[in-house]
């Protein structure tokens, strides 16, 4: 069976005034229908750029490598040039939910109007049908008084409500693939719990594939089936969520887990990962994590390593450089 989404050897570079910077290097991931892939990492690790590449939303100074492939339904998105082709992806087969719902709705247009507009672009519907679908969708995501909310502006809704409306809008076109970029980060914990449960139900009901981007390992543990840990544009560890979180092998994954305050173990010290994430302008050669790795060798042999994932256990993929030091 072919995958719903397949990304092969993706490199993303940006041309800036200060030079060409590498945002993503050699990322390969795949996703099946009905599955949730979590992408986790610190700011600047390339999580959002990966998602935006799928929708071709990266800015004009973006350079993709020639042999990269992003395949959805046997078509390589990166080879799309015309707007009509891209329309099939953006809001059609793929929808995206952003972190800040206030920024994703136009402030001066009613929510209902925005929902109808995007539905009618993608589906041959009359205005009436589009309205019915939109209101039905608002009801499904648990918005009370959907008819009233439909005629309101984004600022009239609370944060949790706005995020629900955003989810309703993203789902109304019945996408096959949903990209959720930090969808719960701006929400309070009780609202976050509501939104997570809602998303889980909807993912099951619509049987779509989801890429769930977050920096919160707790959210990943609750939502995702598989997880990819990213650092400075590279995937350093990848596999089923249970395996990765219970048996992390890459020093970065371990570092992330150790830095996290665990409410069930208040005596555990908080151990920060030493140093800072390097600027993408001087991305380390070889193993990207070597500048902060507690196991980095004195003689600097990690400088000459070529990164790449190897399967250490069935389903558990680990960066080559991390295989040795992960055993320590």
């Amino acid at each position, binding site marked *: 069976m072919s995958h719903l989404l397949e990304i092969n050897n993706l490199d993303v570079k940006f041309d800036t005034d200060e030079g060409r910077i590498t945002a993503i290097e050699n990322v390969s991931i795949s996703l099946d229908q009905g599955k949730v892939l979590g992408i986790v990492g*610190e700011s600047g690790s390339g999580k959002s750029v990966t998602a935006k590449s799928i929708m071709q939303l990266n800015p004009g100074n973006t350079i993709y490598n020639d042999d990269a492939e992003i395949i959805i339904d046997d078509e390589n998105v990166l080879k799309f040039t015309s707007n009509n082709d891209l329309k099939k992806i953006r809001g059609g087969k793929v929808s995206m939910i952003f972190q800040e719902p206030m920024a994703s709705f136009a402030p001066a247009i009613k929510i209902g109007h925005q929902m109808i507009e995007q539905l009618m672009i993608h589906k041959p519907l009359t205005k009436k049908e589009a309205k019915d679908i939109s209101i039905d969708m608002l009801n499904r995501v648990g918005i009370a008084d959907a008819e009233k909310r439909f005629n309101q502006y984004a600022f009239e809704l609370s944060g949790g409500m706005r995020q629900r409306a955003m989810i309703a809008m993203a789902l109304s076109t019945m996408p096959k693939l949903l990209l959720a970029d930090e969808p719960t980060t701006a929400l309070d914990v009780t609202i976050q719990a509501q939104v997570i449960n809602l998303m889980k139900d909807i993912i099951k009901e619509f049987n779509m594939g989801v890429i769930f981007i977050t920096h919160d390992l707790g959210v990943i543990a609750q939502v995702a089936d598989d997880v990819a840990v990213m650092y400075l544009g590279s995937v350093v560890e990848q596999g089923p969520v249970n395996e990765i979180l219970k048996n992390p092998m890459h020093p970065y994954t371990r570092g992330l887990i150790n830095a996290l305050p665990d409410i069930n173990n208040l005596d555990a010290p908080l151990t920060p990962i030493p140093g800072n994430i390097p600027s993408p302008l001087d991305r380390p050669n070889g193993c990207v994590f070597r500048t902060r790795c507690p196991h980095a060798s004195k003689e600097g042999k990690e400088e000459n390593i070529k990164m790449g994932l190897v399967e250490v256990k069935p389903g558990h993929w680990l960066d080559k450089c991390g295989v040795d030091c992960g055993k320590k």
Partner: protein
Amino acid sequence: MSKNIVSVNNLSVSFDYQENFLSKKQKIKAVNNINIKIKKGSFFGLVGESGSGKTTLGRAILGANKISTGNVIFHDDDRDYDLTSINSKEMKEYRKKAQLIFQDPYAALSPRMTVRDIIAEPLEVMKITNSREETDEKVREIASKCRLNLEHLRRYPHAFSGGQRQRISIARALVSNPKFIVADESVAALDVSIQADILNLLKQLQNELNLTYLFISHDLSVVAHVCDIVAVMYLGHIVEMAPSRDLFSNPRHPYTKALLSSIPSIDPENKSKAIELEGEIPSAMNPPSGCVFRTRCPHASQDGKEENIEMGLEEVEPDHWVDRCGVSCG
């Protein structure tokens, strides 16, 4: 037994609100009848969702918000400062002793000032030092305590990462040698590994400089880790207050229970048993009568008897305070 450094007695803070210039003025009670005592040398945590009044309470204690009723008293070694009857000269003294660390280290630092000037500004404004040499000396001393590279003092904030900027903000808050610090969501904007670093730094500085913190956060696991005592706020009221271990192992109020159960567990097999709260926090303009939590409370009675309850904390165990309404239903 150590002494209190801050006592908050029956404190309420309200804001005037007018929908438009023709409509009647309304009062919004952001903080309602709060009583807390912060012990010297403690790490006092204040948690709650957005709109619960955490920040307003913190600012009122610093004298940055007007107090409507009640009072706040800061107990210094030799004298007390009562913030309701303080004059401007005393206020200046108080400002040296109580300082604030902000949430967003990107917004809190002026991009046009060097790090040295940013840290030195409080010294100059409060006229603590008399010469440039003395100022420089103090800046270097605090910067090295906050683990800043002294060679970086001549640079501008844009050259620094989030974690380094937060260390600059901390150095600026501590340079006047305060005794009491309000840290308002000071790690919320940081990545987890940097968050761990800053939390460790705050702890270490507490020991070195004998500080007392009021630590405001929405993140319960962070609060559980660093704080000795925690107060949970909901819609302007404290609904539960206890030593943190006690609070997290034995929560009594239904809101505290729901908050704790909402934290996503990092163990994938421990699928969430979140007590899902219905709806959202009501608007402070129109708070529920009686128990403010009753509109979302899973134990609210059918006959609505919670509407007529007067809120107030009761001591259910030594040092463990729970709102009256929550005692019975918890």
